[in-house]
């Protein structure tokens, strides 16, 4: 994408973070569906998926970390862009669109995998909502840069 705040490495990083979150979430949901004979294994897995929401919520913080550190590094670049004629609104718009594009690809990949493995992917939809919230927060951070 032209005039994007993202470099190739940033896109790969964000994509990998989303993949990790969706992957873990799907693995939890998959573990629930496996018939386990062993009581020992069952109790171990139960310990994990009983706290799935907490694990996943903590894991989503890596997306927050990513957005924060990336935008902090792009502060000067954003200022320069505005100086040479770009507007903050178009920068934010482009940023949101690109974040959404990077989010949609891993989501669709795991949605297809969920359907293939016959696992419910409603939890991944919840994750998307959390990520959308993070994207909105980071977009507000971009808006704030105009005043700094």
């Amino acid at each position, binding site marked *: 994408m032209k005039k994007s705040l993202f470099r190739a490495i940033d896109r790969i990083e964000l994509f990998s973070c989303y993949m990790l979150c969706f992957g873990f979430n799907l693995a939890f949901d998959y573990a629930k569906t496996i018939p386990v004979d*062993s009581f020992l294994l069952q109790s171990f897995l139960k310990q994990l998926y009983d706290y799935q929401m907490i694990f996943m919520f903590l894991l989503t913080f890596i997306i927050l970390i990513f957005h924060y550190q990336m935008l902090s590094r792009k502060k000067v670049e954003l200022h320069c862009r505005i100086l040479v004629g770009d507007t903050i609104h178009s920068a934010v718009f482009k940023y949101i669109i690109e974040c959404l594009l990077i989010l949609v690809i891993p989501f669709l990949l795991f949605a297809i995998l969920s359907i293939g493995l016959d696992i419910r992917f409603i939890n991944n939809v919840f994750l998307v909502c959390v990520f959308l919230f993070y994207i909105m927060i980071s977009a507000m951070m971009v808006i704030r840069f105009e005043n700094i």
Partner: protein
Amino acid sequence: MKQFNQSGVFIANLDPESDMNMGEIDKNDTRQVYDFLNENMKYALYTDGFIVSIPNEYDMEVSFAYLNEEYYSTSKQFELSQGRKLEFDYTLDKDEDIEIPVLIGKGLSKTYPIGSIIKVEDPAIQKQVNYRVSGILKPNVKHSNLYSLNSKQYYNFSVVIPVNKEFINSSNVGLQLQGLFDVIVVQASESSINELKDIISTNLGLKFNFYTQDENFEYYNDFYIGSLKLIGVLTALICIVLTCVAVWSSLASIRLMIKDFTINLFVGLGYNKLRMICYGYYGILSFINVIVLFIITACSRYGTWHRKDAQFSTYGIFGVIGMDWLALLAVVIFDAVIVGIIVEIMMWKIKKVPISLGVLQ
């Protein structure tokens, strides 16, 4: 368990597919089986879980464990901290003042010191009995199920009662049947075991299997070790992924703070000092992690005291026992390795950025 891993030793196991109706089994049926055992075989009998309310300092429900002389002499698990070993030559042939020497767990030792009498109606023989405390078990003496070796049951609030043939004959069907479920026949041949199986089947209508401890170990290995390996692999995988996330977030923080790092390096901060600061910071995080784990473990152990769960209450700092300390030590070692990996990668990354470029950033 090792003591029972000898040739000629067979451990009973009720076949899972055998139908059991306790109501149909009476004392005559079980007596026939015990008569056969007494006349033809040497056997080790052990059964526990008979809960009795006797007053004690912690208001715990006390569990009675019954064992015969063969079990007591073969199994070395009942180590004493005070007192004398069990004696089995007592008689019940009295109308009153039946006195039987017993061992008790550490949790009962303050209420019932050596030589004191626990006067109680025994749930197995349903008679008033005076149990004389002859010995106190060491703290955290435990027993594992013969088929599920990872299970542990602690004797801190148990009374260990010696049973002889007279006691077994006087006891109710419950004890006799429970005793048979885990009876260990020693110095037996295949043919005598088959004969015993027939006797049990004819009199009780139950199908029993008799396995050697080697076969039980094999069952354990087949059934549990596979699961334990899988749990190990899953844990290792989660550990590796989370370590990678920790390394990534540390590198992300370096990207943000590289300017501060390089300015400090420029004005005299040495790489060694920086390394020490990083080790100190991550060391504190690891320390907090270990403390949190210790609190969780202690809450879990101490919870058994709070819930009055006598069979799982253990002695130690907040109930934390040797195996927990070992696990915490393993966590400390893992933490040290992970901290080492993160800090060294961070230092490699910082050194890779030239000071002049870092300052400009």
